[in-house]
């Protein structure tokens, strides 16, 4: 075999190479002490090759991926599953983006698998109602002492508002048409997700963004994961972690310990969000799993075999039923309809909302029947069915009769956006997750609501993770 002449430049040793190796905690092998592999490669070349890797990072000349310096950070707008989220501007195009920092510190297994999953899923999820991942970019760490020298950012197109923020602002007056359009977007996005065989697993108003153009986008795929559809019932269903979905939006099956759940957990979340469009605050704000189950029973009726034949098969059914202060009270009527129906008013003849922007209409108020939107109520009833099998799929919900009745949903809610001058991110609205939203709750900490509760709490501390 002929040996090819090899460019001398690559053999240039340098002091840099020694720096590299000590930085990596590597003891430079000295002289003949190297266990030579017998390939005839001098130890210098090992160092040289390692240096080549390091050079790629140090010289910041990443040929294939944008450097984060292409963006100018403007402000911090939130706390994602992996780390902070910043609003930023692309220096060359002026385009506004959201930079989601991926924390690499303390990551024993390199680039976090959750972030890889998120990137992978977002790549296949190009849809108008799903947040648009523009690229992944990187920056050298500002603290040179840290071992992981590169920080990665996911770059998303920027959305002006999040739904939780909008809903908490009483100045934002939404007509039925606005609500219908946004719910249509929400369910269309969710349908795309489920058709792509992905579970979101963290549906909540704070994870629903609305662009300047008034198009709603599902965001935060930090807990999302692909699922396998069971084609044949002999194959056991895959088990997933149960510790997903923010407590207030968690469906009964998850609260009862189900680990072979499916797309219907997201449908429940969509139902909670839909109700919130009128109540203007999360409809069931439990502080423990037990409390959350009680709240569900109080609103949606008792959980039992009558409404949900398989409920006794849930892993925690026995534990929860035998609890003295039972989280599964029996004999509760389903009051969802009577509590919410009066809020779902049709728009006035001038197209203006007749709904109370504070969501505080009186239940016994006597309105003519045609003032209320029964189709909306029927859809909500089905989304919030106790039995997951009775909830519609996102596909079925997208075809619901409500969306085919006047007023027909529009392409966007641009007109609503035009009435709101400033960004309504929940993060900037209050200091906490739902601070100022539920007017009834005291200031007790809510351990399961850590996501946006406070910027003082590091992401992930209370946060349920996928592992």
């Amino acid at each position: 075999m002929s040996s090819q002449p090899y460019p001398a430049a690559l053999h240039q040793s340098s002091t840099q190479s020694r720096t590299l190796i000590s930085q990596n905690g590597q003891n430079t092998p000295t002289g003949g002490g190297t266990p030579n592999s017998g390939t005839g490669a001098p130890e210098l070349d090992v160092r040289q090759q390692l240096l080549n890797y390091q050079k790629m990072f140090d010289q910041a000349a990443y040929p294939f991926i944008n450097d984060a310096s292409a963006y100018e950070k403007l402000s911090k707008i939130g706390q994602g599953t992996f780390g902070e989220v910043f609003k930023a501007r692309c220096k060359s195009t002026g385009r506004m983006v959201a930079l989601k920092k991926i924390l690499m510190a303390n990551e024993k297994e390199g680039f976090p698998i959750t972030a890889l999953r998120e990137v992978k899923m977002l790549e296949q999820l190009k849809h108008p109602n799903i947040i648009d991942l523009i690229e992944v970019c990187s920056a050298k760490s500002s603290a040179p002492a840290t071992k992981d020298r590169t920080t990665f950012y996911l770059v998303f197109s920027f959305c002006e508002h999040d739904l939780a923020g909008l809903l908490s602002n009483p100045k934002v007056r939404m007509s039925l048409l606005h609500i219908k359009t946004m719910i249509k977007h929400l369910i269309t996005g969710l349908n795309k997700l489920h058709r792509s065989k992905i579970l979101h697993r963290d549906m909540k108003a704070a994870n629903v963004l609305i662009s300047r153009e008034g198009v709603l986008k599902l965001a935060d795929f930090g807990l999302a994961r692909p699922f396998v559809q069971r084609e044949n019932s002999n194959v056991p269903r895959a088990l997933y972690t149960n510790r997903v979905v923010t407590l207030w939006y968690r469906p009964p099956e998850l609260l009862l310990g189900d680990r072979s759940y499916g797309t219907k957990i997201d449908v429940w979340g969509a139902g909670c969000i839909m109700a919130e469009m009128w109540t203007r605050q999360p409809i069931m704000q439990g502080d423990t799993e037990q409390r959350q189950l009680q709240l569900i029973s109080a609103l949606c009726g008792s959980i039992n075999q009558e409404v949900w034949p398989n409920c006794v098969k849930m892993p925690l059914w026995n534990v929860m039923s035998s609890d003295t202060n039972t989280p599964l009270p029996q004999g509760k009527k389903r009051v969802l309809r009577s509590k919410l129906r009066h809020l779902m008013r049709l728009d006035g003849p001038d197209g203006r909302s007749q709904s109370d922007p504070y969501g505080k209409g009186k239940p016994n108020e006597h309105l003519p029947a045609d003032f209320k939107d029964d189709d909306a109520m029927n859809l909500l009833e089905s989304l919030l069915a106790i039995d997951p099998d009775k909830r519609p799929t996102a596909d079925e919900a997208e075809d619901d009769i409500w969306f085919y009745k006047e007023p027909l949903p529009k392409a966007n809610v641009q007109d609503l956006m035009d009435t709101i001058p400033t960004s309504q991110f929940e993060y900037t609205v209050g200091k906490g997750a739902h601070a100022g939203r539920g007017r009834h709750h005291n200031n007790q900490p809510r351990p399961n609501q850590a996501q946006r509760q406070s910027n003082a709490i590091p992401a992930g501390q209370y946060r349920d993770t996928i592992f």
Partner: protein
Amino acid sequence: MADQKVSEWIWHVDALKSTPSVLAGLNKDQELLYRREGIKLISEVGNALNCKPRPTIGVAAVYFHRFYMMHGFQTFARELTALGCLFLAGKVEDFPKKCKDVCAAAHSLYPEIFAKYPNLVDDVMGTERLLLHCLKFDLQVGLPYDALMEYKTMFPDMSRDQITDAVQIAWTFINDSIYTTLSITTEPQMIAIALLHLAFTVKGYQPVQQNMDPCWWSADVSNWPPQSVDKACHLVLDFYAATKEHPILSAKKLTVYGAF
């Protein structure tokens, strides 16, 4: 090299004549051997960790071949790149293996090759980040297996046994095709077609066509003449011929050309 690309990750066959490694002094055959050795490492270390050809090892191999279309073997050691690809593919495909397990398996299978890396874990982590850069986070890789399975039902005139047999053989060809540069010059579906065609040929099956078109794949890939399909098949056959004489890494040492 931009004009030698068919799409983002598919290159013209001619691009293999001017890869970064070739430009830096390797010849084409030497580079192919280097590629095979890298893939062998992926495959053996992967096997030891219970990774399957579909998807982990297959995906890792695609990463590996893509990477060396952008960088030379002279600059980046194939043994590190191989482990990095395997580690990353495991995570992407949801069969994650601990980095230290990957490294331990590598050390125990190929002690000589990896002896010069006392801190292999750190090196593999560094490699991962480099890979993420080079692969542009475009980590979702299609493999030929899915397309192959679809063809299982496309030949109503063949007996069930025949088609199962042919698909089985094609499956094995696909497993072995990772050692060739097929994945960077040919779309996954076309690989499936070519290797199923090869399986038919090996078994002497003649898929009957309704329209008498000798190219049974023309509904999916039009204007792909049998000669070109044969060329793709020969890449795999060449691999078998080459490794029959010289099994890859049989001495558990990497081949070294030149003085690096």
